[in-house]
């Protein structure tokens, strides 16, 4: 697994994940996308541990789309680990969640999240949101390399 990962999608809901990936694919934004199903897997990947121990930690993704409510290790904890580690704190992290809770929004920004997007219930709105953020982070935004 030496190829460069553009988007790391961390999402436990397979339907949300499928709809997200479908939307990105429709807009040709799905190249080098990796979907992980929980926080523990995400940490292993990001810090090159466990199943991903052969990976180079400095080979960071262009953007991480992170769900908050997940089994085992939740999104907030993953965010905390990424943003408090010198090697990973520059990775752009977009929280993609169903939660509109003020507390969640404040906490995420306090930890240094780069963007916070609430998934719309209505599918067309959802598609619009995913397309926008995909385009922005992969094409418009300049990430540190």
């Amino acid at each position: 697994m030496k190829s460069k990962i553009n988007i790391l999608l961390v999402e436990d809901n397979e339907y949300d994940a499928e709809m997200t990936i479908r939307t990105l694919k429709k807009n040709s934004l799905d190249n080098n996308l990796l979907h992980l199903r929980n926080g523990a897997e995400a940490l292993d990947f990001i810090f090159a541990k466990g199943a991903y121990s052969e990976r180079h930690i400095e080979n960071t993704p262009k953007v991480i789309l992170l769900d908050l409510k997940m089994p085992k290790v939740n999104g907030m904890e993953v965010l905390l680990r990424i943003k408090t580690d010198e090697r990973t704190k520059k990775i752009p992290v977009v929280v993609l969640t169903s939660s509109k809770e003020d507390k969640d929004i404040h906490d995420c920004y306090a930890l240094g999240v780069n963007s916070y997007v609430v998934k719309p219930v209505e599918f067309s709105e959802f598609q619009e949101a995913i397309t926008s953020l995909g385009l922005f982070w992969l094409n418009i935004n300049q990430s540190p390399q």
Partner: protein
Amino acid sequence: MHQQEKDKIKKLDELIIARKKLVFQNKEKEKREAELIIANKELAFRKKEKKKGEAELATANYARSLIEASLDPLVTISAEGKITDVNEALIKVTGVSRKNLIGTSFSNYFTEPEKAHEGYRQVFEKGFVSAYPLTIKNKNGKLTDVLYNASIYKDSNGNVLGVFAAARDVTEQKWAIDLRVANKKLAFQYEENEKRAAELAIANKELVFQNNEKERRAAELAIANKELAFQNKEKEKRAVELATANKELVFQNDEKEKRAAELVIANEELAFQNYEKENRAAELVIANKELAFQNEEKEKRAAELVMANEDLNKAEIVIKKLNMGLEKKVMERTAELESANKELESFSYSVSHDLRAPLRAVNGYAQILNEDYGTQLEPEAGRITKNIMTNAKKMGQLIDGLLTFSQLGRKKLVKKIVLMQDMVSHLCNEIKDKENNSNIQFQINELQPSKCNIIAIEQVWVNLISNAVKYSGGKEKPIIEIGSEIKGDEIIYHIKDNGAGFDMRYADKLFGIFQRLHSDEEFEGTGVGLAIVKRLVTKHGGRVWAEGKLNEGAAFYFTLHK
């Protein structure tokens, strides 16, 4: 104290002592002078006595010459002891006339009559006596010591006629002795006199000396007097100062008198007031009597009240017990409510997360089906897919509304002054743009600023304006009028439209959550907007209400504090 003053005092002390000495010496002098006068008087008396003695001596000598001429005092006495004859000498020596002498008892004229009687008895017995001492007592008290030589004398017949007695005056001898004694005394007195004279000379010398001293003292006194004069001048100066002070005092006294006069007037006024007071006092007495009566009545009422209070106290205790029970219940309910709120919080969180994800999936997959297989489906299948999507979307909106509504209760309101006019104008423009309805006419009148939470009140306006826009959308010329007015300490904001309106019978249902007066076919909606308005305004301590008429329009009102 200055040295000068000290010296002055010293001099004065010395003067006082000198004066005392002088007074003492003067007294001594006076004593000596008095003694001298007495001594001189005594001397004069002694000289007189001497002269007297010499005169008497002369008389005695004269008497002796008489006796020599007329013999000694002679007398003849009868056998019975009666005087029968006398000579001049005897008359002289007794001071009794011849006439009176004769016939009287011879012994009567002696100091010692018995001795005299014994004398002539001896003469009768022995025939004579010689140098028989007796003392003749003169009528004037003068005594004459005599020595009697007596013998009986007989007549020619030899018959004893009586006694013839001749007295030899021995006074002279006695006087001679007395004179010698007196002379001696005189000599002594002379000596004494001379002594006194010498003492006097000495006393006089002393006097002279004392006079000299006196003069010296007088000179000192003169100096002292000069000093005294100076002190008197000083005194006069002080007196002048005192006079000035007295004048001032007089002035002050005048002032005092003026005040006294004023006081008199004030006192008169006081007296008048006292009189008035007395009048009032009399009135007061009457009033007091009435009061006493009223007090009695009051006490009666008080007693009744006490009884009533006792009842009340009992009731109060019961109420207290009830209140305590109530408080406990309130606390229990509060605790219950708090835990219920927490449950609600976690409930809404899970709704937010867990309920929306499946909905998104329903909606999403229906749309994917439509996108991917739409061309292959029967038209009816397409309609069904669309219904699935519509309902999923609707449910999503309901969930969002519910979440928003539940979150309202938990947020704390930070209040600031909000310029309502600016906010509403801005919101109207935004909504107009969004609706893309150029027919809508907004009339924004003056809107009072208010101290409120800007986010919450913005939400209130968004919901109300959106409502108005939505329900007046069917009109040809939708007009939305917004304004405010101050009433008491609150501001009443209103928003009126000429839209669909509502039946006033259902006015109370307008602000309930999920309550709708129109179907989705007529007007889309979730029934959350006005509920949110009510909740936010109520949280600000304000009120909301609505007026409307079906098909003619509606008016919504809410109040905020100034």
